[in-house]
């Protein structure tokens, strides 16, 4: 017998929370693909640490999303038993692993964004639970940003090959940044209800921090793209189905399996 998908009771509040929790969850899964494959042992452990931090954040936020949804869905059901369209992570999180330059740039973009989001949530969310989750997560995100950002600087300001790879990573990833800051009815309604900031408010500080890292790396910040990815509205790239298949197989095939 296989496990059936759960049906979500989607409100702006649950969607706001799932966008955050799912972005952490899917990014963690992607980063964990580096386990055993990073260029050096020390970095292998550092990447695994980042992935585990993100899993911890995802667990806390998904648990809270389940409580707010009010249909008794726990973190495991939310993580493993949804259909693709019911995941609301930003597309940036689900893109394939790529090379190491791609990994450190994506991690820097995501960590800078999450750090700014956690800082705001920790201060101003009306939800005590979310404030507490954010207060803990922001310490982790600060380190993720520093560690990954340092790599962007090293590689951007490194050899010819490392700079070319960083430029290629920028060319391929930068267009997915727009999604981190666009707004829609769910975002507006959740922000009006006091859950947290409108994501659009994070755009200016994000660009300023990324500009600083890229300048130090001797890299040029690409122009804003008109391309609009839509993962946070449940419309994912072609890569999403494969990562979900990896993640969900065990819980689908052996419902409730634990070890």
């Amino acid at each position, binding site marked *: 017998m296989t496990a059936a998908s759960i049906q979500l009771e989607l409100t702006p509040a649950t969607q706001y929370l799932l966008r955050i929790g799912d972005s952490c969850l899917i990014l963690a899964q992607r980063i964990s693909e580096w386990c055993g494959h990073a260029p*050096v*042992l*020390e*970095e292998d*452990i*550092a990447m695994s*640490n980042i992935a585990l931090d993100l899993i911890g954040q995802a667990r806390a936020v998904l648990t809270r999303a389940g409580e707010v949804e009010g249909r008794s869905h726990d973190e495991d059901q939310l993580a493993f038993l949804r259909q693709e369209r019911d995941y609301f992570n930003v597309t940036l999180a689900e893109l394939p692993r790529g090379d190491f330059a791609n990994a450190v740039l994506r991690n820097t973009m995501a960590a800078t964004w999450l750090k700014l989001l956690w800082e705001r949530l920790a201060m101003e969310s009306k939800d005590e639970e979310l404030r507490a989750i954010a207060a803990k997560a922001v310490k982790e995100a600060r*380190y993720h940003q*520093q*560690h990954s950002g*340092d790599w962007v600087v*090293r590689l951007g300001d490194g050899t010819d090959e490392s700079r070319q790879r960083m430029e290629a990573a920028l060319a391929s990833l930068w267009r997915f940044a727009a999604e981190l800051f666009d707004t829609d009815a769910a975002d507006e309604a959740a922000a009006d209800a006091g859950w947290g900031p409108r994501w659009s408010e994070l755009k200016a500080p994000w660009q300023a921090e990324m500009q600083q890292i890229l300048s130090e790396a001797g890299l040029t910040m690409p122009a804003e793209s008109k391309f609009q990815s839509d993962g946070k509205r449940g419309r994912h790239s072609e890569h999403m189905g494969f990562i979900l298949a990896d993640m969900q197989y065990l819980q689908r095939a052996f419902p409730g399996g634990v070890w």
Partner: protein
Amino acid sequence: MSDINKEWPLWEVFVRSKAGLDHKHCGSLHAADAKMAIQMARDVYTRRQEGCSVWVVQSDQIVASDPGDKDMYFDPAEDKVYRHPTFYQLPKAVDHM
């Protein structure tokens, strides 16, 4: 293909487990420079709450005694029991010395 000169230098890592205690040597790692060495030390050696502070020092900066001098340096202390303060009666108040 591996060029020994391109290998990152080796660093020794010292971790302080809590405020007030000393930094203890706990291992080594490779890193390109001091900043990276501190981050790697944090990631490799403190991920299970082992510490609240780390020191790193490049391994080739450590001056060590020569193993060939071991007999001359350390064996003579063997029969000098009088150097241990075991012949004194300690007051109760300092019982844990």
